[in-house]
């Protein structure tokens, strides 16, 4: 069946993933973020540029006292979020103050996409994960399905929202807003293959300088591999990042089996009961 005849509708625009319906895959490479903590100065320009470009409302005025972080976490209204970690011993020797700009991971095996019952969450031609606002019905299944706590549901429109990797900007050849605004190029966007190479070179350089850094996001253990790569100068656990993440689908696979057994059991019990009652 040609995609143009889905459900008998013939006027549908060209689908976003035509190649899944047999069309030739376009040359557009998978795109990703590379966020480098070792260059981040914690200025939050990414947070603000993201909100401005995407016209996301503020998240409320809450002073947390948690270092300089008052937006606290990613969610429907915060698509880039800068974490602050203060580490100072009593003598303040080797004190550290580190910043990490977190963002949607655009997973290969995206929990939100897998669990979305309406098809609102799709994979774009940039291999990014995108929520179509006009299709999302606000069921919220995506929220517990995300292993990184990225997506949230907005009170304003009841829909689920998260980073789009500036899908609209990328479609016209522009860089996402966060990367454009980053004054130190701590956030870069590009073809994922190039970013991986860039990250490896950068990590080699930093390690040669004696810095403790690691690449995070490349492992298939993390939801099949992520399109958002991070160079971390802190252990991932300290930043709230898991070292392995399975998405809802995996959990569901197991529970499908479990549920099937239970269901079979009930069928057997019911059948037995019916058989008995007939007697």
């Amino acid at each position: 069946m040609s995609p143009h005849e889905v459900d008998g509708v013939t006027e549908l625009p060209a689908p976003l993933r035509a190649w899944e319906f047999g069309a030739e895959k376009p040359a557009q490479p998978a795109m990703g973020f590379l966020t480098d903590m070792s260059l981040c100065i914690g200025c939050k320009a990414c947070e603000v540029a993201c909100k401005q470009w995407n016209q996301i409302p503020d998240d409320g005025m809450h002073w947390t006292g948690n270092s300089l972080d008052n937006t606290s976490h990613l969610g429907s209204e915060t698509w880039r979020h800068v974490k602050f970690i203060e580490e100072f011993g009593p003598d303040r020797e080797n004190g550290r103050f580190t910043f990490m700009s977190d963002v949607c991971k655009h997973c290969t095996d995206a929990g939100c996409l897998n669990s979305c019952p309406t098809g609102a969450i799709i994979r774009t031609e940039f291999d990014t994960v995108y929520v179509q606002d006009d299709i999302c019905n606000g069921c919220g299944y995506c929220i517990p399905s995300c292993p990184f706590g990225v997506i949230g549901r907005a009170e304003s429109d009841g829909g689920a929202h998260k980073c789009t990797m500036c899908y609209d900007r990328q479609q016209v050849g522009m860089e996402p807003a966060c990367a454009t605004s980053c004054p130190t190029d701590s956030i870069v966007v590009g073809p994922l293959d190039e970013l991986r190479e860039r990250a490896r070179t950068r990590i080699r350089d930093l390690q040669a300088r004696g810095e403790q850094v690691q690449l995070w996001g490349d492992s298939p253990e993390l939801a099949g591999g992520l399109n958002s790569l991070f160079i971390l100068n802190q252990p991932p656990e300290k930043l709230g990042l898991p070292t392995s993440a399975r998405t809802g689908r995996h959990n569901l696979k197991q529970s499908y089996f479990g549920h099937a057994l239970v269901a079979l059991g009930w069928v057997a019990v019911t059948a037995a009961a019916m058989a008995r009652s007939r007697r």
Partner: protein
Amino acid sequence: MDLANADCVLVMGSNMAENHPVGFRFVMEAREKGAEVIHVDPRFTRTSAAATRYVPMRSGSDIVFLGALVNHVLTNEADFRPYVVHYTNATAILPEEYVDAEDGGGLFSGLVRPDQGSGDGGEAPSGVSTTAMAHEGAGTHAHGHGQVHYDPREGHWGYGQADPAGPAFSIDTDPTLQHQRCVYQVLKRHFARYTPEMVERVCGTPRVDFEAVADAMVRNSGPERTTVVCYAVGWTQQSVGPQIIRTAGILQLLLGNIGRPGGGILALRGHASIQGSTDIPTLYDLLPGYIPQPLAGEEHKDLAAFLKAGTLPRGLWSSFPAYFISLLKAWYGPAATAENDFAYEHLPKRTGDHSQQATFATMLEDRVKGYLVLGQNPAAGNTNARLVRGALEHLDWMVVRDLFETETASFWYRSPGVDPLRVKTEVILMPAAASAEKDGTFTNTQRLLQYHDKAVDPPGDARSETWFMYHLGVRLKELYHGSSLPRDRPILDLTWDYAPNPEKNARFRLKDEPDVERIIAEINGYRLDPESGRRRQLQDFTECRDDGSTACGAWIYSGVMPDEGVNNARRRKGRPPTFPEWGFAWPKNIRMLYNRASADPSGKPWSERKRYVWWDEAAGSWTGLDTPDFPVKTRPDHVPAATAAGLDGIAGDSPFQAKPDGKGWLFAPSGMADGPLPTFYEPTETSERNAVYAQQDNPMVKRFDDLDGNRKAQPADPAYPYVLTTFRVTEHHVSGQMSRWSGWLSELQPELYLEISPELAHELGIEHRGWVTVETPRARVEARAMVTARIRPFEVAGRTLHQVAIPFHFGYAGRVTGDIANDLLALTEEPNVAINETKALVCNVRPGRRPR
């Protein structure tokens, strides 16, 4: 941009990563190329986090730290000797009568105390003179009647002999630097007491940290390497601000780091185009291009007197008459003629101190009727903001032009404790246009002008500042039209040909926005063809004439529009390393000032690694990666004749052509109101006795002690035991008058907080996130407690001294509100530039909210 070429970056008096994140990009670039990045600051901030080394230092002790670096360089003879001998005034021999602070208990010769009269008033010889003009530093803010001040002539700060009959002068020098009275030796004695021990005692900086900085700077200076210094208001907003910068200047000259790639001292600018508003100033004592505003009275009674006072025998300021008369021609056009002193009479004259601080004192005396406030928020942003709000009540009227209803615009009904019924001030709020809603230029930290085009109309009645000023001028001209009164001539004679350009306004709703590029054309300057009467744009300031044949609105900007319709500030071409076709850098598109110093005395680059501008013998001119900041045909071995004047008087090995001797001034014979060399004084309000000199604090500071509500703590006052500094965060803009109205910025920092160390919090029983009250003799302010180890206690003079810090971004207007931290501060004026002191004072801290 050149920061990226540095081998070592010292950031001090600035939280650069937070407040100048875009410029900090180049510091990061340098760091990634292997440069050391050092942050000296009382607080561990986002800048400290990005630095390779953080060094703690008590607020207000900067001169001791920098002075000790100078001492380190001199004691170890680590100076860049050929640079120092040729390019600075280290060799100049000072008069015998000069007495240094070293021998004067912290004061120099030439001190005039009002109760002692003004001494003998004798005229001292002045080769490199002591002219008190603005381009030499005015020093006229604070010393009015009854104020202690220096008379540099009486103090014999000047060196060299001038020929009273002409421009010739000679300077006694000692190229071996051995003469006991040569500047090098004077410097050595002056800074001898600035030792690492003194740094430990006064700054509370551990000796190892200080020595690491000294080592790094020395190691990264010389022919092959350079160090840059970045500062901001952490230095300037102190009672000794300009002298802190002077100390850094001395250090950088000794290390040979001025005029060379990756070197210099960068004044980081905290607002878009604040550099522009100094160049074409919003200051009461300056005219465009650092020309002083003339004084009322005898001193500048006519054009001749003013020109005589402002003209230096040699160097760039020898053409002062050409710059000034061209300015008068730009402003008054045909009405400025040789016969009428080029309308010199039209210029308002200074009658005294009309700086911002002093103006509020005058308001309290009911001597100011009206007040125009453009893009400023003194009711929250000025020191002693409470006193300021009180002063505003004395006005008859005030016009505020801003994007929002700021604290200043709403003071009459929202200021704490105010009774609107009793405020007589008529307040008019006029909505202003934001930068994307108007044409204009930004001039940034590196003197780079960048033009921006209007993108959209401003909403509703909002209009640009240019619109306001232009139409105000048009209406005033209409009002005075036909008047024959001489006092109305300055308005009637103003050239005002910036009429709206229908073509440019065609695609916008607003059709009466004036043509900004007409203003830039006038700023650039032009020559009127005597026959056709047509304008021909000047190519650069060297075309300015003193005969009335040229007009130029700001000589330093000349070249920004060298032809009709050629706006160099619009250029956006990138060509590394200096991007000469990106915007326009004043003067003459020079990207780095004094760049002749990047070559050795013979004109060759000091090293291949640091080559920048050099002498091309074959071409007989200076050339390189940038426009040479030097007479391009002056040979490196040029020795001026004794009678040579102007730029011919600058020797081939003297890169500092703005100075009459062409040398970098280690010792400043003129220009500084509070001494020719920096001396450490404690802040006006401090917990400490001055351990360096008997003189406690800067005696030239104007203190406004007699104003109600401006009381100050005594030195070491036990009621105010903690050091307080104010600061900014990256999330807000100054008093918040733009940022606190944006949800996106406000949510990032929604409340006022006090940064306090865990040690002090423990001592005072203050809980993290709880309430805390800060108290000074002026006010009490409540804030949330941010208990953080980024703040640390200092060991000062053998005991533990606590410091706390508060951002000054809050007020009673906007989406997020809070107490006004500036209510805590006192109104004071530093003597050179009338700056307020915000970075070092004392306070008390108590747990809990302020009493209501």
